[in-house]
């Protein structure tokens, strides 16, 4: 085997060492870089590998103790939407909530219209945008 083959093999064989080197853990998602002017929304994707879908829904019930929202989609079908500690709350632009910071599940009311992004596999909301304060 010539030195070229040997060098290639050493390089490739070193790669599985990464298995021991890295340890388990989440990948490093790209960090958000808001522009200097601040006009760009700071919207990092905290769960970069979540297969999600977005939908416009209306709250028809809140089960705070179960961290569950009962929502109705635009076709009138009802769904359970889970909320966990990773769920991000954001106000929709041009609404009376847009100046409010630190939104949480306590700001949700029955009848509110939301834009939700949820993980399809288990129905957990990754992001909730409050579109209006009252419906």
């Amino acid at each position, binding site marked *: *085997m010539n030195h*070229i*083959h040997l060098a*290639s*093999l050493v*390089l*490739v*064989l*070193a*790669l*599985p*060492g*990464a*298995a*021991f*080197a*890295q*340890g*388990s*853990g*989440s*990948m*490093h998602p*790209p*960090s*958000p*870089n*808001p*522009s200097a002017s601040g*006009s*760009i*929304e*700071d*919207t*990092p*994707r905290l*769960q*970069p*590998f*979540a*297969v*999600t*879908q*977005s939908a416009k829904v209306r709250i028809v019930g809140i089960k705070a103790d179960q961290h569950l929202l009962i929502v109705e989609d635009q076709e009138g079908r009802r769904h359970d939407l889970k909320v966990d500690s990773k769920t991000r709350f954001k106000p929709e*632009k041009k609404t009376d909530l847009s100046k409010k910071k630190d939104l949480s599940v306590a700001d949700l009311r029955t009848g509110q219209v939301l*834009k939700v*992004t949820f*993980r*399809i*596999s*288990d129905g957990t909301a990754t992001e909730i945008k409050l579109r209006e304060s009252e419906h």
Partner: protein
Amino acid sequence: MGDAVEKPSKRVGLGWLLLLLVLSESLYVALARLKAVNGARPVLVFLALMGGLFALYALAYLAASHSGRHHGRTLAMIGAGAILFRLTLLPAGLPDNSTARSLLAALRADVRGERVAYDRYQLFDDDVWRYLWDGQMFAAGTNPYLYPPADAALDSRGDTGPPAPAHALALWDEIRENISYPEIPTVYPPLAQAVFRLSHWLAPGSVMVMKSLFVGFDLIAVIFLALSLKVLDQPTEGVLLYAWNPLVIKVFAGSGHMDAILSAMIAATAYFLLRGAYRASAVSFGLAVLSKMSALILLPFLFKRVGRRNCALSGAVILAGYIPFLGAGSGLFKGTLTFARDWQFNAGFFALIRWLASRLGPSSQEAEMTARAACCLAILAVVSWLAHRDDGGAKTFAPYGAASLGALIILGPTAMPWYVAWILPLAVISQGVGRRVWIYYSALICLAFLVMMDETEHALTLGLEYGALAGLVWFEFKHAKRRRHELELASTGRCESPAFEGGERSPSGG
């Protein structure tokens, strides 16, 4: 007499190929209908389907190889399979594909721009929304490099001019919502932007039309590869290795990645080099860089073959492509720089260096920077070494180019599965180890999708992926060495170069 011996073999090969085509198609139908979401079951089913497709693909290559050289019917069947598999995967990601009627209704809505008919993710990938958005920005006269999709300046884009229909506003709002990392400006170079704009011109907001354009480029790559194999006097059936590659079909037809443009341009560059058409090759290379900058890594190998003047032509093509976007100023490469600085995924070498650096004491940020610098140096070193060894022959561009692109992916901090599709056109027209290693990698990198199980990148995945690759490379080198030895013993007195058989002079052993 020769015909009498060859005919039964041809028939057996073609019969098997037909059977494998039908079996593969059934798996592609299942893949198109797979609900690709997070969780162990969907991901394992996806990997099982891909594994099955790769097994059928390997058998199909063997069957095609036994059907005779330059056999028209074999090539027709390979072409039919290539088109059929791609057409089958185009609707992947459409939630309403349980019946032909619902599928057609969803496709009609998508092509007419009535609503977003596709799921946000198509077989675990969601890059297509950015392409649609960029196409719309470009068509509206807005420089796509200037504003990231989340920029507030774009909120009022519909406030001036004639009012847009409500469904159109809702469509573009939803497309905008679906874009990953909307705070980062586009990274896609001008040729990609032109294709996005063409898609917008054909059918605004249509995922199907965008994906179809990429499939078109993908098939152009197939044609260039078949022509290249013919020029090389190699069995044209070898084109199956690209045309039926399950990863290629998944990432372009299934998930709609724009890298198909790059694959086509790389295949064109290699073909024109083989024909000695250096100007056409230089233009193709310029277009490759205009579709994705990673093609720049091929520059030293192109330079050796086409010379300074033709490389200047490539530069002129690249410059001409950027002229319409120069208004973005420093913003032109902002997205690309962010990507180079921050992105990391499925990178074994990077993870190893970062771990080693973190053991030596620096903070995690410093360890990450050290790892990025080390990756950069390692890539530079490998490419410099390859360029130094490069003999400048028309036939060796493919193995050297494949090795350079492979080094960029394996040693870089981001090894997305669809990146391997850049290497495959060059791998297919290489021979020996230099071909097989990259085919193996195209199968093994599918393991990266294990991250979708629990949204966590596990060390075991990297170990499996790169460990298996290392094992296969080791096996191939041993096999090549033994074969060379046998050839030397068997053909003493014959002046035969093993460069394209045993892969001894090309870079990957190769």
